[in-house]
């Protein structure tokens, strides 16, 4: 009886270890947005993006604090938070999606895989389903994810005052870069 109990325990342990190995995490994901407008170009970086990738299900989850976007100028950062993104009311943006062509990827084999990810993007309290192209690179037990796509500010109910309409583009170019490592407890 003791042997059976031990065998069940070991089997459960192996299953748990495998489940953990399928989960990858980063606390240093990077999201950049770029606005090209007639009067000025605006760029901001956020290096505090957290993301989890479940390689078995092909699920991505991203969480972003709006106040962690850093601008070149204080005034831009102030306007971005207070006037456009209303970051006191909507402090986070997030995305939860799935790789639509998961079967193309072998996470246990080094390589470069073009993918499509479909999911729900929430910005400024508004959720929209988006489908974006990206790439996944598997190298030395780590996974890098990259994606470039655009979002229309009006889709997320972000209002740009008429007086600065020429300063901010109606469509923002978003770049996502995440370097994942296996998720493990210290």
């Amino acid at each position, binding site marked *: 009886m003791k042997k059976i109990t031990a065998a069940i325990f070991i089997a459960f342990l192996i299953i748990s270890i495998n489940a953990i190995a399928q989960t990858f995490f980063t606390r240093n994901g990077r999201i950049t947005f770029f606005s090209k407008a007639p009067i000025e170009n605006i760029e901001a970086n956020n290096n505090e993006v957290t993301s989890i990738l479940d390689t078995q299900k092909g699920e991505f989850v991203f969480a972003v*604090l709006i106040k962690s976007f850093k601008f070149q100028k204080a005034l831009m950062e102030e306007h971005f938070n207070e006037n456009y993104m209303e970051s006191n009311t909507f402090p986070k943006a997030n995305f939860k999606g799935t790789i639509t062509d998961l079967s193309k990827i072998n996470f246990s084999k080094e390589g470069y895989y073009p993918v499509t990810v479909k999911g729900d993007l929430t910005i400024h309290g508004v959720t929209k389903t988006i489908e974006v192209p990206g790439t996944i690179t598997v190298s030395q037990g780590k996974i890098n994810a990259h994606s470039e796509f655009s979002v229309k500010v009006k889709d997320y109910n972000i209002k740009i005052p008429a007086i600065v309409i020429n300063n901010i583009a109606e469509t923002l170019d978003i770049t996502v870069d995440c370097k994942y490592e296996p998720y493990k407890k210290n």
Partner: protein
Amino acid sequence: MSKISVLLISILIILGVGGVIGYKMWNKPFKDPLQGDAIKVTAMLLFNDFSANEAAAQKKYVPEKLGDKKVEVTGEIKDIEKNDDDETYYILKTTDEIFGVKCVMDKGHEITNAKIGNNITVRGFCDGLNSDVIVNRCKPVK
């Protein structure tokens, strides 16, 4: 002096003053975390406050307007890394096994010879909870 000359000079003065004010506003610097008062807190307490009630902690620690609240965080370094912008950050230990307080240092203000296990105190601006509690644009308190 004719009325037209007075009017032109007045317009030039107004434009000049407006231009200077506009230029200064456009180039206003980021607030220095070492200037003025700061909320003094341990990394443990800061993390526990956010874990217990995120909305209340946000009101307490996160600036409503850019730079209008600063935190002075003390804690033990659990990890030292650099991000893609080559900014050094320290993860300060909390009661959580994985997550902590992430203090992203202002470039050029890193702590010399900082090592895992050291106790440090930094001042910066709290962005909120994103798995870790994020404190940005940090400078060391000497």
